[in-house]
């Protein structure tokens, strides 16, 4: 028969491994549980976000409706007594940094229109659309 002499280390390693294994298992369970909790949380937040989005849309629709030209005109002309400006009383001013705008197809290649549609302040300043 052979006898093997156990070292002190082997008495420590086995329980330590067991403890580590248990810690690992509980750790994974804890992480998974936290993950699921977070997913629930995210799900709730997503629902709340959609609700807010819906509210925003309803408010936007209401705003657009309230700002319709027809309603503004009715209020302005009816309750406030405002009228559209008479062209004879409007003074047009010319900005120094903006040249007068001339539309033409002629400069375009092969007869294609070269006119750029201007928007925003540039267009307004030049008296174009």
């Amino acid at each position, binding site marked *: 028969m052979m006898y093997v002499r156990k070292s002190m280390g082997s008495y420590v390693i086995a329980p330590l491994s067991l403890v580590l294994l248990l810690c690992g298992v509980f750790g994974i369970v804890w992480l998974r549980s936290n993950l*699921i909790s977070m*997913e*629930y949380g*995210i*799900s709730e937040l*997503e629902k709340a976000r*959609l609700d807010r*989005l*819906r509210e925003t*849309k*309803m408010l*936007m*629709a209401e705003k*657009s*409706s309230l*700002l*319709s*030209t*027809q309603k503004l*005109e009715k209020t302005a002309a009816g309750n406030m007594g405002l009228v*559209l*400006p008479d*062209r*004879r009383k*409007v*003074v*047009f*001013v*010319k*900005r*120094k940094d903006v040249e007068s705008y*001339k*539309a*033409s*197809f*002629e400069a*375009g290649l092969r*007869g*294609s*229109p070269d*006119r750029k*549609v201007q*928007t925003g302040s540039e267009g*307004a300043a030049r*008296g*174009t*659309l």
Partner: protein
Amino acid sequence: MLLNHGRFFAKAMDQQLKKEEIQVRRGIVFDRRGRELAVNLELESLYCDPLEVDSPEAGAQVVSEITGKPRQAILNKLSSEGRFVWLERKLDMDAARRIRESKIKGVGFVQDAKRFYPKGSLASHILGFVDIDNKGIEGVELKYNTYLKGNGGKVVFERDASGKTLSQGVDMESKGNNLVLTIDELLQFMVEAQLDEALKQWHAAAATAIMMDPFTGEILALANRPSYNPNLPGGSGSAERRDRAITDCYEPGSTFKIIVGTGAIEEKIVKLDSPFDCSRGSVEIGGRTIHDAHRHGLLTFKEVIQKSSNVGSVMIGMKLGKERVYKYARAFGFGEKSGIDLPGEVSGWIRPPERWSGVSLGSISIGQEVAVTPLQVLRAYAAIANGGFLVRPHVVSRILSPEGKETWSFRPEGKRAISRETADTFKGILKTVTEEGGTAKMASVDGNEVAGKTGTAQIIDPRTKRYSHEKYVSSFVGFVPADDPKIAMIIVIYEPKGQIYGGVVAAPVFKKIAESALSYLDVPRQDRPVNALAAAR
């Protein structure tokens, strides 16, 4: 247990997984300045699972009281077979809340979007409308349905015993692309307001107006009367929903004289002062006598157009010949669709010369025996305004992704119809139409020159198959400022009562709209120098 693995596994999956539809929302439609013209309302639709309903009678009573729908119809649905039956689509928020509070077993709610047009009937013929399932039926809603509608789908969620779901990180709302139109809400309002007034004043059967940028073909406003509210499309008939601007043909009358006028100049067969003897007040062609509305004396070519002489126009047409009259009519786009991005456009018609009768040359020279749409006429006059190019009218300028990124934009197209010289010469003649001695003095705008042409055409009586002496189409088409046009516009009034002439009925409408539109567009008056004081800025 193991033997029943499949069954129990399926049951477990059924309990753990939940399928949900992705909410599909149509894109928003904006005007050219970013004002919303079509948006979505978030409503709820009510459904039931008849097998789960405890008391159909009580449920039907509650739902009927709240929705106002017949009790029996709701009861039938609650008692029907199947597991999913719609009770009411797109309930308003208050009704949905009240039904929810009544806690009827077996009924549930689904989020549903309803298309809403915040400006009411404004621009209804451009926007169109959608059906109950948010599918485009008319207007840009139909034409651009593919872009506006979002892509749906289903998402599978894990859920626990209490029914709480876990996030899958998927956006549960799919949005369609947004459209930016070329129309301007305020210009559209101006046009519609004046059209309403004209309809009232002349007790007319219908009316149409289109405003366009003559250089790009952008439709700035398009309106028809009668009209409808796209929020309640069911409350209107086909007459109200018809987009007369592109689907209705009419004989244009004198506005068609642009064909013989420009053709004669282009072919160099007349000069501005070439004389035409119109003193007889009538001319015979192919056995038919064509009269002038008022007898004129000896007229120059320029005066023939200015005074809209039928006799003079027939003479010009005879000089030009039928082949060339047809050639110029086609060059200006008559007899073909303009290509506007709205559904239902018709091409109108003009017969080829080989099918003309002996009278046709005379009739077509004065705008009879042809069928055109208001948009075709406007497009032809826009060619005079822009130096001879036939543009493609359009109502959508850009398509934006839901995130606001531009995915498509319209590039203006133009093909030459006549030379620049001819266009400029004819523009000069059209300017005289709105001056003293012309037929459209009432279209002249304070401070800016207007170039245009009146039209007064008889309508064929369907009973007698002859021209009616009571029913007319009065029109005016023109552009302003004449030398640097910002807008081209056509006004067509169908069957006005009391007055018939385009210069009296339609021209004042043009004037009123043009004056407010020029103010809005900051177009200065030509008769006053621009204030130099501000140049120092």
